[in-house]
């Protein structure tokens, strides 16, 4: 629009390329903004497309959410912003929103003819950057570019400001507010965002469009240092400046630490069950970190204990988990501790998950199995097959796992519904699945892990809080391939081919997964403690091959020990627990563990859904899981809440369900875990409660 070139030139690829390039001419902006518009109403879709074209934007339209996700996944950096309708037949708009936020971290604008306050609120809580009421006016569309800038700016702000502690803290606080999309913070978020925007508006305006914020790769080591510093200071007293000093890493800025801390806090928050004061839980996790660090099982156990200690884990759950962890005879027992833990955690945190039933089920492994059945966790094999980066997988898994706000539990359920038995085999299968994949996955370091984690976390989070709905952890595509994850044998030459758990139905997902950065970094370090991996834009990182693999590594490691994981109970729980354990048990590994957890989760689910050919069957390592988790982590970011843990959960659940399904001979696919949050929702809801769309 402001380009003199006018519409015509803007819509050409060259102009969009110019816009994309780092050093693109700022003058053209916002012309050439790449918009993806999703609406099932053909009339509206055409009108929107035309309006956007008139604004000199580059428009891609699609009438189905699944298609949109596929497009986004295949073309990771191909879009700047997404506009989506709320009511769509194949997937709820909010689910899509969550997916996108977790996997791609793009600004999403929701629109609807519905202007009811609760719907608009839903948009906010799910992380939409704006909500337009239909019929949409051209004027409203002209300014959507602001959301792209704002998002970038928020990222930049931290990087650019090297100000005083006060300033930084303030900023961080604002960021935190901004990121915490929970309803409680919405007001703060908005005002803080506004403040931030106002502050830097003039100065950043010209630059943000062309600047690419440098990303810090939070490697395993780095994260370990970070967590160690945080622990040393005490989670409540940990401020970026001090953490930075303690870490003493050259080149690391206070802003980097601030944003990482923010995510970490979110993660912790989720772990503690949505409460911002997750002190109990955190402490329990954090403190015994070292102790629990040990073997995975111990880690798992630790988590359980920690959880139980924190009062968060119901005694029953704990018992169940432990039983499971110990590999008791029943199917449940086969659930690896971490998984179980996670499950419990999950259920614990969100009793609703299972819609009540779930809770019981969680306790009762058997029940869970049933649950799992019900839950359509389809870790579709197809997804696994793609050799996409793990990150993708994660995304998918994560996106899948997390359900819309409506059913927090549904998401969880989904994951948990590994159909059935979580026999250790299953779990391991899943895990293994990941392995091969991971090894090969495009060397995306942690970044993969991260996403997973976020996915998982996100998933968890959502279930836990109603707010978290965004977590759609479909991203869980348990990347079974991650065998590498566990052992970080990244050397697998195989790309995460299809292992990438079929996150969901979206084909695009697999692509993501194969990024495989996981593999690389996972190595050894992960002792089974899952690091807390906030969903740092894993996906972004993935693309950039950031060495986020530490996350994955962790995951891988953890799963190795924990193999269990995917017990039906709840992949979610598992992931959670794994994450928790991992992350907390070892301060250092924290990030890693998470990844591992995530991955394992992912893997589990992946294993499940994948078809026979999947690595699931092949490998019994949890390795694969980690991948998944990572992915999950990422999806979480929709609401800006990168609750990795959450994602992990989902991944695990998915994995579990996938596993279960598989083992039970249930056809994985089904819809279920296609990361079609929608179908999962349905299934879950059906099972548990009323489904959103049931006839009741």
């Amino acid at each position, binding site marked *: 629009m402001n380009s003199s070139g006018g519409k015509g030139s803007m819509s050409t690829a060259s102009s969009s390329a110019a816009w994309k390039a780092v050093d693109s001419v700022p003058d053209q902006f916002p012309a050439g903004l790449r918009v993806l518009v999703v609406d099932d109403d*053909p009339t509206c879709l055409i009108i929107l497309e035309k309006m956007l074209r008139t604004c000199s934007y580059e428009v891609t339209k699609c009438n189905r959410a699944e298609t949109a996700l596929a497009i986004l996944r295949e073309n990771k950096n191909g879009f700047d912003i997404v506009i989506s309708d709320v*009511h769509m037949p194949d997937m709820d708009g909010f689910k899509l929103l969550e997916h996108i936020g977790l996997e791609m971290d793009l600004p999403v604008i929701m629109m609807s003819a519905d202007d009811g306050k609760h719907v608009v609120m839903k948009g906010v809580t799910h992380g939409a950057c704006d909500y337009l009421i239909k019929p949409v006016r051209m004027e409203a569309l002209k300014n959507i570019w602001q959301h792209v800038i704002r998002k970038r700016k928020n990222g930049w702000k931290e990087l650019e400001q090297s100000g005083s502690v006060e300033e930084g803290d303030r900023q961080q606080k604002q960021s935190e507010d901004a990121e915490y999309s929970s309803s409680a913070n919405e007001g703060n978020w908005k005002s803080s965002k506004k403040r931030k925007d106002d502050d830097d508006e003039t100065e950043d305006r010209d630059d943000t469009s062309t600047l690419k914020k440098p990303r810090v790769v939070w490697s395993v080591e780095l994260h370990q240092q970070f967590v160690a510093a945080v622990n040393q200071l005490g989670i409540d007293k940990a401020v970026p400046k001090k953490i930075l000093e303690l870490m003493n890493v050259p080149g690391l800025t206070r802003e980097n630490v601030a944003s990482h801390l923010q995510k970490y806090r979110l993660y912790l928050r989720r772990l503690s069950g949505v409460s911002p004061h997750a002190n109990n839980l955190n402490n329990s996790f954090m403190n015994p970190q070292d102790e629990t660090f040990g073997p995975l099982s111990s880690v798992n156990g630790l988590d359980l204990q920690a959880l139980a200690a924190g009062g968060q884990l119901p005694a029953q759950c704990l018992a169940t988990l432990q039983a499971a962890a110990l590999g008791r005879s029943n199917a449940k027992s086969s659930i690896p501790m971490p998984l179980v833990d996670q499950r419990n955690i999950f259920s614990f945190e969100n009793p609703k998950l299972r819609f009540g039933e779930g809770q019981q089920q969680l306790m009762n492994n058997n029940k869970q199995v049933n649950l799992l059945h019900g839950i359509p966790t389809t870790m579709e094999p197809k997804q696994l097959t793609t050799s996409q980066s793990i990150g993708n997988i994660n995304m998918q898994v994560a996106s899948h796992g997390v359900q819309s706000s409506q059913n927090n539990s549904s998401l969880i359920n989904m994951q948990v519904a590994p159909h059935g038995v979580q026999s250790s085999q299953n779990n391991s299968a899943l895990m293994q699945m990941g392995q091969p994949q991971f090894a090969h996955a495009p060397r995306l370091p942690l970044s993969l892990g991260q996403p997973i984690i976020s996915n998982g976390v996100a998933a968890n989070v959502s279930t836990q809080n109603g707010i978290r709905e965004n977590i759609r952890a479909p991203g869980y595509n348990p990347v079974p391939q991650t065998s590498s994850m566990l052992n970080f044998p990244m050397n697998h030459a195989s790309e995460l081919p299809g292992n990438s758990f079929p996150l969901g139905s979206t084909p695009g997902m697999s692509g993501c997964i194969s990024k495989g950065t996981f593999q690389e970094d996972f190595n050894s370090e992960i002792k089974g403690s899952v690091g807390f991996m906030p969903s740092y834009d894993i996906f972004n990182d993935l693309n950039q091959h950031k060495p986020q693999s530490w996350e994955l590594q962790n995951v891988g490691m953890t799963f190795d020990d924990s193999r269990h994981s995917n017990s039906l109970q709840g992949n979610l729980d598992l992931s959670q627990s794994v994450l928790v354990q991992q992350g907390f048990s070892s301060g250092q590994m924290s990030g890693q563990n998470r990844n591992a957890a995530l991955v394992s989760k992912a893997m589990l689910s992946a294993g499940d859904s994948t078809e026979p050919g999947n690595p699931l069957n092949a490998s019994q390592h949890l390795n694969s899981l980690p991948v998944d988790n990572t992915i999950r982590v990422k999806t979480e970011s929709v609401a800006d809440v990168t609750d990795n843990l959450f994602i992990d959960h989902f991944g695990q659940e998915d994995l579990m369900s996938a596993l279960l399904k598989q083992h039970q001979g249930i056809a994985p696919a089904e819809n279920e875990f296609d990361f079609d949050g929608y179908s999962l929702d349905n299934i879950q809801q059906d099972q548990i409660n009323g489904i959103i769309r049931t006839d009741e």
Partner: protein
Amino acid sequence: MDRNRLQHQVACMRRSLFDQGYLDEPFIQLEELQDDANPNFVQEIVTLFYTDSARLIQNIEHALNSRPIDFDKLDDYMHQFKGSSSSIGAKKVTNECTVFREYCSAENAEGCIRSFQQVKQEYAILRRKLEVYLQMVRQAAVSRTA
């Protein structure tokens, strides 16, 4: 002359469509979107609207005739219909849709059936008027200035 006269007629009809509340602001946006690249944009959109509406109306009919009535589904269909009719600025149709949705949320079958009749009626009226109007627009466009 012919053209001028036609254009004058087009303008009059257009004004009356707005004055009488059949059309609203969004329709103006559609007209503004029409340009050399899309010279028949308005017609295309309207045609698309007809097709989509036909489908939705059929779905609603079906849902209204089934027993027991699924109000959720009904609301869903009507929501879609309302969305697309408001997108083209079909004011009266949109208003009737709103009334229908109110009955629907109250699960008032009778009310739904009655208001749906209104919806269909307004839709039919608008469609006729639009067809006449757009035809006039086409004629004016191709007419020669005497």
